[in-house]
């Protein structure tokens, strides 16, 4: 596929892929390749991505907010990577992800522990509906950690996959 005079690496960085972004493709039809366009949503659904770089020496207080007020944010998955360089190897903590209006809001936890290796941590559900702890939905997903001063001295990259949903 020949490209225009300007090569793609020269384009400005578009940041995170958005569901409405348009992408080119070609399809083999009747012996020839034909140009088409599609949207990122057709490739990965309406999944959105939030990338948060957290300075682990201070408390984490981040909110992922719906583009349209009133829409729900449905958490799908998350992972976090970091290279510890920790002051206190073996110290652990949890990233708590909450939906603010839920009376029992704490729904997911990303555990992590300091040490000497690079880590990938994956979120796990903390609550269970059978115990009447709801995973309530809201327009925000909040991520919080309270750290002990001097415990961590690295940067953690947290990647959260979620869907924004218009209520019925």
């Amino acid at each position, binding site marked *: 596929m020949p490209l*225009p005079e300007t*090569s793609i690496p020269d384009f400005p960085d578009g940041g995170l892929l958005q569901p409405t972004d348009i992408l080119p*493709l*070609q399809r083999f039809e009747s012996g020839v390749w034909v*140009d088409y366009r599609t949207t990122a949503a057709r490739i990965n*659904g309406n999944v959105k991505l939030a990338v948060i770089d957290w300075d682990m020496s201070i408390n984490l207080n981040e909110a992922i907010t719906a583009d349209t007020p009133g829409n729900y944010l449905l958490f799908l998955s998350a992972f976090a990577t970091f290279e510890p360089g920790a002051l206190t190897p073996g110290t652990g903590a949890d990233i708590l992800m909450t939906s603010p209006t839920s009376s029992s809001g704490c729904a997911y936890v990303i555990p992590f522990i300091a040490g000497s290796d690079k880590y990938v941590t994956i979120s796990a*559900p903390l609550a269970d*509906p059978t115990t*009447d702890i709801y995973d309530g939905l809201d327009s925000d997903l909040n991520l919080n950690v309270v750290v002990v001063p001097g415990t961590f001295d690295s940067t953690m990259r947290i990647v959260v996959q979620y869907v924004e949903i218009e209520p019925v």
Partner: protein
Amino acid sequence: MPNRSISQFPDAGALVDGDVFPIVRALVNYKVELANMPQPIQTAQVTIPAAQVLTLNATPFLVVPAVATGEAIAIQGGLVEFANGSANYAANTTLMLISATATGNAVRVANISNRTLPNAFITPATFSPAPMKEADGISAQVLTGNPTTGNSDLTITVFYTVVNV
């Protein structure tokens, strides 16, 4: 690619096997085939009338029809919302997403005891989640027995991928 804007290309509609996308890797142009990209996340949404919620243990409600032989559904997430109700469901309010053909544990669970609180399906923590099998669909069912009261319609939305097995 000709000298016209990508947005001027005709809409491809549903993607098909063999579609190719341009990428640049280490400043070199490549094509990537659809089969080598992440599986698209699909959406299914159903509304279960209140009368059928009251029998939702005895009679599960189909949410995602069975996929083809050689395919299986992997649930990515989902939620349940409430409408048109004036009373909460009581008893047996654990809502499960289950295999449409196999008996066994839930794949995901949510709670329908509070009609003002839409909530997400999560992986069950107190019992082992069941796997999805080939050529299967997804149904909704409540755990243990039918709810005893309540009159809200339930709207269930499920996000899933179809994987080759």
